[in-house]
């Protein structure tokens, strides 16, 4: 990243990134944007914890607090965790399967810009009359009653960024199905690729219900619809269903890639093949499937009746089985291995007890009668931060360290990495463990303050202190990144020395066309196999060097996104400002127009000729 910047000058680099369709650069964009949103979401988390550090606090007002928690949840889930994972999928998955790029490079760029501008739109609400304040779940009766434009920003912003995610999901699916290198059978795919595959399938089926739910909300609030207005025959429970039909698979969209990352790490740093590979694949698919059959466990107290509650309770519990398979397979992977505790491995090791603790509280919540007590209490907050922070965020932090050399040809500092880990890890348990008890002691979630006489003071203070430790950890990470980027010491390929999969075999920095020759995959962990057989190059090839076809860069994805961004303002102010409808139409016209340009104009890409390839020794 820095090396190009030096050669090209700022303007050219900027243009390059605005128009790029290269999965490696899009990965960097996802990582940067997602990282930024993570810090924003984290700062919001800090505000929450400051407010709740002591009883009857008035650090933020009641209304503002609701805006903060809503934006914290929404930002973290939609704009931080998922995009960062998308970043790693983009950076790693095509290399793992031996592909030149993803299936639809143009759409890949479009997906990114949609996500980014959806996120920007959502966050603009802070400056344009107030953020959404009905919780990230935005239950309909409250979200219809909420004054101002906050909820409109939520619905429109998520609609735009959701479209980006949906496009990304299809893209990954097609890439994995169609573009695997010769010999890369389904049962030889690295687990990160597998989990990307299943997570993308979940995106494919989970986002349409969200889209519909958000459309209903948009129509109800801005265009006179009546889906959720019970005086007009509407029904708010429809929103709850649609949201959770999306929402539950969504949490598996987050955790499955995290599982994939840890599977890579455990094998790599134990110098050992992943234990029970085929059952890992099976478990991944099963979790994905079951993920669609359990959404009503978020709705046990809604009053769906005992039969629905019982069915969904039992179905939910079933998920423990495939997840348990995974946990034990990881344990057996390190068992008998040669464990090297690097920073990524440290995260992986921290993940196991943390996630199991979070998972088993999930099973407790699945016991419906018990959930009547736990629902909407701090116990739930504890549960999902244990699985999300203890699972997804630890995976993200691990992957930042693990894949940094792959993405940037530099190594993050290991010592600082470990400091980050310990601060974050201790802070995390400190913050959230105690919240289980707060919940059991009767503290509801989403309260902007609490009275002093209820026995919650000390635990809340401890929780807030833990959050501060987490913040220190994150700040150390930021420092680490800055130092590394400034130093810019190249490390070459296979920096962890025990790389097993194709992405570590490719020369560094990764050429923009990825593989000069398509590799031939000869088994699971193909790089490891080649190394064990003494192959210095690390790859066997499936074809001689020949011309490579590459797609052209394009500015159209950006323009299309801007069109929707503009249109969203039109929709938002519909019925309030005269210019609303014209702006809406203008925005849509820009988007449709650029789509038309895209389909009318011939864009066949270009070729890199064989001779040039021969001379190119990697590098950019």
């Amino acid at each position, binding site marked *: 990243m820095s090396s190009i910047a030096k050669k090209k000058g700022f303007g050219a680099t900027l243009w390059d990134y605005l128009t790029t369709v290269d999965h490696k650069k899009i990965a960097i964009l996802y990582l940067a944007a997602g990282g930024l949103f993570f810090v924003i979401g984290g700062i919001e988390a800090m505000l929450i914890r400051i407010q709740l550090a002591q009883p009857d606090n008035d650090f933020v007002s009641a209304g503002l607090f*609701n805006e903060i928690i809503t934006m914290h949840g929404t930002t973290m889930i939609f704009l931080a965790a998922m995009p960062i994972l998308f970043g790693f999928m983009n950076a790693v998955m095509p290399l793992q399967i031996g592909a030149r790029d993803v299936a639809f490079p143009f759409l890949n760029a479009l997906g990114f810009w949609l996500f980014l501008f959806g996120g920007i739109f959502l966050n603009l609400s802070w400056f344009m009359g107030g953020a959404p304040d009905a919780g990230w779940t935005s239950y309909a009766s409250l979200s219809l*009653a909420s004054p101002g434009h906050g909820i409109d920003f939520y619905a429109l912003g998520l609609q735009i960024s959701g479209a980006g995610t949906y496009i990304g999901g299809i893209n990954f699916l097609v890439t994995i199905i169609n573009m695997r290198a010769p010999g890369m059978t389904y049962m030889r795919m690295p687990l990160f690729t597998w989990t990307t595959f299943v997570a993308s399938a979940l995106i494919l089926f989970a986002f349409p219900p969200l889209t519909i739910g958000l459309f209903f909300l948009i129509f109800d609030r801005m265009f006179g619809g009546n889906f959720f207005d019970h005086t007009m025959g509407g029904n708010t429970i429809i929103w709850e269903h649609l949201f959770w039909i999306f929402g539950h698979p969504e949490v598996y969209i987050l955790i499955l890639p995290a599982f994939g990352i840890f599977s890579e790490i455990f094998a790599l740093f134990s110098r050992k093949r992943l234990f029970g590979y085929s059952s890992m694949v099976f478990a991944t698919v099963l979790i994905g499937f079951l993920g669609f059959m359990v959404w009503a466990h978020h709705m046990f107290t809604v009053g769906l009746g005992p039969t629905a509650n019982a069915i969904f309770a039992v179905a939910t519990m079933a998920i423990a089985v495939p997840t348990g398979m995974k946990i034990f397979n990881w344990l057996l992977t390190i068992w008998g291995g*040669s464990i090297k505790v690097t920073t990524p491995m440290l995260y992986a090791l921290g993940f196991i007890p943390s996630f*199991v603790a979070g998972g088993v509280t999930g099973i407790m919540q699945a016991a419906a009668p018990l959930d*009547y*007590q736990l*629902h909407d209490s701090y116990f739930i907050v504890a549960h999902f931060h244990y699985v999300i922070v203890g699972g997804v965020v630890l995976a993200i932090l691990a992957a930042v360290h693990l894949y940094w050399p792959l993405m940037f040809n530099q190594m993050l500092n290991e010592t600082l990495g470990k400091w980050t880990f310990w601060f974050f890890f201790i802070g995390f348990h400190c913050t959230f463990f105690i919240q289980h008890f707060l919940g059991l*002691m009767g503290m509801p979630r*989403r309260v902007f303050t609490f009275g002093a006489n209820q026995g919650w003071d000390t635990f809340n203070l401890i929780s807030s202190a833990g959050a501060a430790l987490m913040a220190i950890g994150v700040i150390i990470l930021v420092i680490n990144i800055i130092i590394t980027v400034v130093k810019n010491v190249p490390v070459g390929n296979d920096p962890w020395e025990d790389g097993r999969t194709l992405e570590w075999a490719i020369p560094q920095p990764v050429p923009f066309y990825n593989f000069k020759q398509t590799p031939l995959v000869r088994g699971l962990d193909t790089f490891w196999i080649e190394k064990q057989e003494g192959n210095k190059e690390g790859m066997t090839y499936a074809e001689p060097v020949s011309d490579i076809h590459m797609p052209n860069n394009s500015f159209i994805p950006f323009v299309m996104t801007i069109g929707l961004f503009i249109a969203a303002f039109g929709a938002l102010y519909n019925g309030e400002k005269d210019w609303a409808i014209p702006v809406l139409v203008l925005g849509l016209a820009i988007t449709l127009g650029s789509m038309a340009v895209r389909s009318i104009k011939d864009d066949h890409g270009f070729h890199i000729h064989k001779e040039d390839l021969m001379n190119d020794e990697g590098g950019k």
Partner: protein
Amino acid sequence: MMKGLKKWRLFSLLAALTIFLSGCGEEYLSTLTPAGQVGRDQFNLLLLSSAIMALVIIVVVIIYVVALVKFRRKKVGEDVIPKQVEGSHTLEIVWTVIPILLLIVLAIPTVYYTYKHADVAAMDQVDEEGNKTNVTVNVKASLYWWEFEYPDLGIVTAQELVVPTDQKVYFNLKAADVKHSFWIPTAGGKMDTNVENVNQFYLEFDDASASLEQGVFYGKCAELCGPSHALMDFKVKTLEPEDFNAWVETMKTNEHVAEGELASQGEEIFNTSCIACHATSGAGTTGGMGPNLATFGDRNRVAGFMSHDEESLKKWINDPQLYKPGNLMPQPETINDGEKFSEDQLDALAAYLMGLSVEK
């Protein structure tokens, strides 16, 4: 022998858990100190599931720690290439079957209690004379207050639920504006109050609440409902059945007369400014714009969460928005000829309201 040992282990684990957990939290608020059968069932489910989960965690952690100690690279040697094991069918079966068994152990009571706690068939039961055998309460949740109507007894109260002990109390739950959720942590789990339908469930209370620190159990709104969601508390007073019946009788018959000059002045102000929304008689049915104030003097809190004294009452009346943002009680300016209440007016109102009582 092995079996006995295992049983003993499980038992002591449960015992330790019980002691540890009930040490947490306040007796009038915590789910860990259940005050009735429903809460106790759920607490037992908590104990059972915690024990299972503790077991799972212990097993995982043991394997984990041993692996971590035994197989560090420092220990096994820098250049050792471990055997590349593919997997093991036996192990796979073990860790599929054992969790399934554990889950079955949890699933059975789960399903049983799910049906048990949803059983409201006895709600409409009547004795020979056609009187309802059980107390039913219609709960209406509004932006940020609670109304409790006793349809069979012909009385209404607000903010403080009064229920008899030692019997099932049935609830019909509904929201008036946006969704809320009705939760008395000590008595049992919550149930949402939806806008478009009536939810039903029941709770039980063992003992009269008089012995508690505050004399009441705490109730909460458990569904985000707007800025003052956190302040939407209510209190629950449990009475022995005789006391309850006595309370009902006074509620039905009690005609309040303001005592003293100050209170009478207050009554006058109240009747010009407040009566449009607030009823002061407990006899009747639901439908007030604002909470029924018949039992105001007996309450434990002002506005559900402020301490019960004239000071907070006056503060509240003169600026409800400040204390409970987003609530629907008019600011004094809109009901008092465009001005705040004067100190004298406030004193009078406070005296009048504090005198509204069925217990004194």
